[in-house]
């Protein structure tokens, strides 16, 4: 717990900056895009003498999904995804290459070394959820601003779920049901654990470790997709979809366990400082 808190504090600055970027860019996007639409409407109706109905039928009313599909909205999300992908590596390597090889002190702590691994993984998970939650809290605020900006007759109001549903990419980040949320982020967590293991291989054996790490990741991917390949090519769709899902969950659990065990072993016996 102390370790998790410590890691989060280290990430806090970057995290806050990213949240700030989401907040500013997305709200700016809402305001600018709404303004552009209203200006266009004004121009057409009062300058070109187009009737309201004609404008609406030609341009269509504006809905919040127009904003969600824009760079203003998706850009910050993409930035955060990139930041997390980067941080998965950074969270380890800065302990080696930072000012005073911090990893010494981490590994000397009087707890199991595996706890370092868990603390880092938890931090990645927590910050990811943090971004998602922040976005979910931000959405109602943004729709309210949108409602202030665009008059009623030019607007189609969508519920938050409809807004998210309007963009398939967003459905991956914020799925419709809690079960899917658990499955998607569970898969994400397994991937993070595989990458951590690969990083530890590299730290243990350097260049040879890079190769082992890549091989390890490949084996994990193969283990994961074997049930699906068997299902479609050998077993002729023998399993019902729900059974295949259960098998895949078990496979993912096995891969996760392997990664944790291997990482623990590497941290304890092999890591070179």
């Amino acid at each position, binding site marked *: *717990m102390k370790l*998790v*808190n410590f890691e*989060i*504090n280290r990430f*806090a600055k970057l*995290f806050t900056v990213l949240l700030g970027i989401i907040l500013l860019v997305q709200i700016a996007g809402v305001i600018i895009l709404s303004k552009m639409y209203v200006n266009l409407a004004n121009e057409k109706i009062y300058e070109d003498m187009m009737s309201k109905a004609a404008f609406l039928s030609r341009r*269509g*009313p504006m*809905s919040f*999904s127009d904003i969600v599909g824009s760079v203003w909205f998706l850009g910050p999300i993409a930035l955060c995804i990139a930041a997390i992908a980067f941080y998965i590596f950074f969270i380890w390597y800065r302990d080696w290459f930072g000012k005073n090889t911090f990893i010494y002190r981490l590994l000397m702590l009087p707890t199991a070394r595996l706890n370092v691994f868990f603390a880092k993984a938890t931090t990645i998970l*927590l*910050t990811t*959820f*943090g971004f*998602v*939650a*922040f*976005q*979910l*809290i931000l959405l109602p605020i943004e729709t309210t601003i949108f409602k202030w900006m665009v008059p*009623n*007759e030019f*607007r*189609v*109001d*969508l*519920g*938050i*779920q*409809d807004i998210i*549903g*309007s963009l398939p990419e967003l459905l991956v980040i*914020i799925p*419709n*049901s*809690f*079960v*899917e*949320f658990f499955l998607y982020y569970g898969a994400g967590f397994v991937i993070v654990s595989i990458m951590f293991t690969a990083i530890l291989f590299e730290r243990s054996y350097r260049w040879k470790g890079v190769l082992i790490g890549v091989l390890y990741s490949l084996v994990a991917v193969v283990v994961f997709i074997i049930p699906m390949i068997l299902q479609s090519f050998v*077993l*002729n*769709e*023998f*399993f*019902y*979809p*729900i059974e295949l*899902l259960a098998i895949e969950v078990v496979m993912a659990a096995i891969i996760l366990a392997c990664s944790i065990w291997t990482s623990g072993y590497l941290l304890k016996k092999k890591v070179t400082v």
Partner: protein
Amino acid sequence: MRKYWKAALVIAVIVFGVGAYYVNAAISAPQKPEFVIKKQSGDEKEVQSIVLDGSYQVGFHGEPLQLTSTGTRYDSEVSFFDRLNGFQKNKITELEKEYRSFMRGKNGDINAYFEDNQYLVYADVEYKRNDLKPSDFRFKIAVLDKQDDKATSLNLSVPNESNLDWVMIEDVQKKNDQIVVMTQNHVRDSGNRKVEVREYRFDISNKKLVENKKIMSQEESENTQTDIYMMNESSPLEKHENVVFAKVVTEFKPANQDQVAEGPEVEEILSDYISYNYDRKEKNHIKLPESIKKAVETDGIDSNMFNGTKVYFMRFNEKGITITPYSLNNRRIEDEISLSMQINNKYGGMPPITTIRDGKVYAASPISDQNTKSNIVVADLKSGKTVFKGEIISKEPTQTNREYELYFHQLYVK
């Protein structure tokens, strides 16, 4: 505790944000209108087992829905696990529920099944796809005896399989101790391509192919393309004596000088309706009056139906539907039935979606929007009387701000 405030804050935000979203999603009332079938005249019992598949569209966002007499079910209201088993419930999902182990690994094509009180039969043709051309076509047939829950299966090579390009199952029947499988085969025959309809009969107790008969065949030439369709059956699973095929020839006329850019002119000609009787093993051409033939050519053959003994040819106009039954046993046209029904002409007068089941015809208009309503009409085929008339309305008073369109693409009766 002071020390942990950042982590605590992050966790609090997560619990609040994610929690609030999913709790809200679970309890908040759906924002899409609830559509119901409102009776105008007739007996409500007639539409109790009706199922309409369609979608609800606002702007560019559409969502699949299923409408029954009890109301509307939207795609987003279905739980994740139910969705895995298929959103739109149909006969196949029912069979999977009831005969779980028998249905394992069987495909979702309703024509591949046959069911009566005692047996459930399934037939498929599988092939290897790993070579450049498909090879090793094999019949996979399974028969389930429902009473003693015993399944018999059969795995036989398709005759002349090395000449096949693909095989489609058109119909499966059980006649006495034989399994009859009707297929459409695409065949390569010394450079030429052919389409064939074939009947295979299997002796299930001896696991043997006992008969292999060609029902129809058509060679492909350079300027024509032939498509053979099996006519929609009102209840594809059940036992019936006949099958009906429509043969449509598409001609590609060479383009004129000034038409080159638009490509060749295409003309579809319905050339033939052919019925085949399983019991007598005989083939007949159906002779149609020119008026019906013309209507069938313009409206397409998709909406015609047959129920095992009669073919129902349907014609549509602004006032409704005219149905002409053709009896396969007497080989005669019977009295026409007219259904009056308003069709929304705003969308180019798309024909209504129809189905025939247990001596009744069901029809529904395919499109409606916030200003119009979809109609549903049920009529008795024997008497020609309309037994139910109704419209599909939104339960709540329509919100002024919402422009929607409601589409239906399939109607079936459970």
